[in-house]
């Protein structure tokens, strides 16, 4: 089921990262990152905390600046040029660990803010789109409430809907279930699985190995700021090659 895209489309990856290096002050946080992602790919990035996995995906929509190497997203290279950054951010949605919903706006307003101000959509159209996505994440009845009135799982689903309203080509997920109570994790993962079925290109930083097995078509293991190993999920979990990967998997799969 998890077939890779055909080689033709691999020729035009939607994200290209070459020899990318990033430092926080003197701390070398990302080292020599090479990564290509093609349309429709679903990548899970895992690794111990502090391995640089969140920083990597935050570089893709320029929430973090890289100092060396090249990042090309949707055919646009990320530089200091604001036009480029704006273009990339329009095409790349992001879901955060702590949801980061706007507490002073209703759920519906959260979803329509960017379409109205960035995509310059008419309000009615933006609201119709928002309701469509709120239905897809199964909370259309909460549209008029404020984020503070929702549970964590509901908030995260709103955050996903908010990103989808911009109709991005790529979705980044930065530990989307880490801040949730256990009983709410499933409702968010279910939404993400459905999203994967629509063919969305997804990069997911997560510790949910079950999600990686069923949804991903590539798993990337990072440690110490570098990509240590990547493989198809079944190979990755059943036959890890690197010692570090083995150690990590033994720790995380113990439970």
């Amino acid at each position, binding site marked *: 089921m998890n077939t890779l895209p055909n080689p033709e489309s691999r020729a035009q990856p939607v994200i290209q990262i070459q020899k990318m290096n990033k430092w926080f002050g003197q701390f070398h946080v990302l080292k020599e990152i090479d990564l290509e992602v093609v349309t429709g790919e679903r990548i899970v990035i895992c690794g111990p905390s502090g391995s640089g996995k969140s920083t990597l995906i935050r570089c893709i929509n320029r929430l973090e600046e890289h100092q060396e190497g090249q990042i090309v997203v949707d055919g646009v290279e990320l530089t200091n040029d604001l036009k480029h950054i704006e273009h990339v951010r329009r095409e790349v*949605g992001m879901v955060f660990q*702590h949801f980061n919903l706007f507490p002073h706006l209703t759920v519906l307003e959260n979803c329509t803010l960017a379409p109205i101000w*960035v995509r310059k959509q008419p309000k*009615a159209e933006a609201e119709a789109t928002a309701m469509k996505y709120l239905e897809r994440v199964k909370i259309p009845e909460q549209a008029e409430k404020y984020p*503070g009135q929702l549970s964590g799982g509901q908030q995260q689903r709103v955050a996903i809907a908010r990103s989808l309203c911009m109709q991005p080509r790529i979705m980044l997920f930065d530990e989307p279930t880490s801040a949730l109570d256990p009983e709410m994790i499933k409702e968010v993962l279910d939404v993400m699985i459905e999203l994967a079925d629509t063919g969305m290109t997804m990069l997911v930083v997560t510790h949910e190995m079950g999600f990686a097995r069923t949804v991903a078509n590539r798993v990337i293991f990072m440690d110490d700021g570098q990509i240590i190993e990547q493989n198809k999920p079944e190979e990755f979990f059943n036959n890890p090659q690197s010692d570090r990967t083995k150690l990590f998997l033994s720790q995380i799969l113990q439970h």
Partner: protein
Amino acid sequence: MTERAATTSILNNSEFRRILYQLLIAALLIYLGWSIVENTIANMEARDIRTGFGFLNETAGFSIMMSLVPYEPGNTYGRVFIVGLLNTLLVAGVGVVLATIVGFLVGVMRLSQNWVVSHLANIYVEIFRNVPLLLQILFWYTAVLKPLPGPRQVFERNTEIYFGISNRGITGPEFILLENFSFTTWTILLGILFTIGMHRWSKHRQAATGQQFPVVFVGLGLIIGLPILIFLLSGAPIEFTPAKMGRFNLSGGITIIPEFLAVLLALALYTAAFIAEIVRAGIQAINYGQTEASRALGLRNGTTLKMVIIPQAMRIIIPPLTSQYLNLTKNSALAAAIAYPDLVATFAGTALNQNGQALETLAITMTVYLSLSLLTSAFMNWFNSRVKLVER
């Protein structure tokens, strides 16, 4: 035995204790109030002090150096009260505007990424809020404005003066608006109306079609640019009558007295330091994740500020900001130290010394400030209940 049990039980009864305590307090208060009233009456009789508010209708007999309404020594104490109150409101009103501008500027500077800018703003805040306000008022008055050279040194004899600064304050021309000026007035009014309309129209249009319209720039053009054009086209219909330097003194023109300037500067700069801290804290209180989420959605920095940061920061900023405005108004009473004729200096100062009715005079003065306080806290309660974030 039984009797003792009964006594302990009634003394330990919490309801009984509540009533007992309150009765004791009430009795104490009544006794205090009664003895104060009795002592006061006795003392006033002994010292031959009149009572009542009849003095408000009597002639004051002293002059006041600055007044927004016509005033002369023949007017009543009631008029003095009005003059003082207006002067207080004037210096507080202008002070609030100035303090807000400087305070927001410094507060934003403190958050700047630029090391030089943020540290200079910090130095400003620390200096101005750690030095007593009264000292700052005296400094501006006694050390800065009063030692300025007098009109005779600054201005040549028998000249017309359009603008000048001396120890008499800032001198400028008096101006009369000629008939044609009404064109300009109307343009300003129309510009404001049109901008309001345009704002609504642009909101509707954005809702309907998604197109945005630069309301602010066009509005500024309509309210400021166009009136200037009309003003010039109608032949600049203002007539200035400059002040004249006579043999010894200035006459005519408009003078902003140094007392007003000193109080204004001190109040504004002092309060601005506190406002800067409020603004900084308000903006910093917003989680950085809000900015990141907004950026990740593709919003520009300007839109992020306008739609995400400012609406949230203002909820945090406005209540303490209002109480700073109230503080500024109360602090304006310090103007009495340099004899700026505010409510305290004229009414609770000169008038009180002349008629000796301290109790009534101070009661009226305090009531004014108390009413302002109550109004402010009423506003804050209303505001807080309005903007409270809805939570579960």
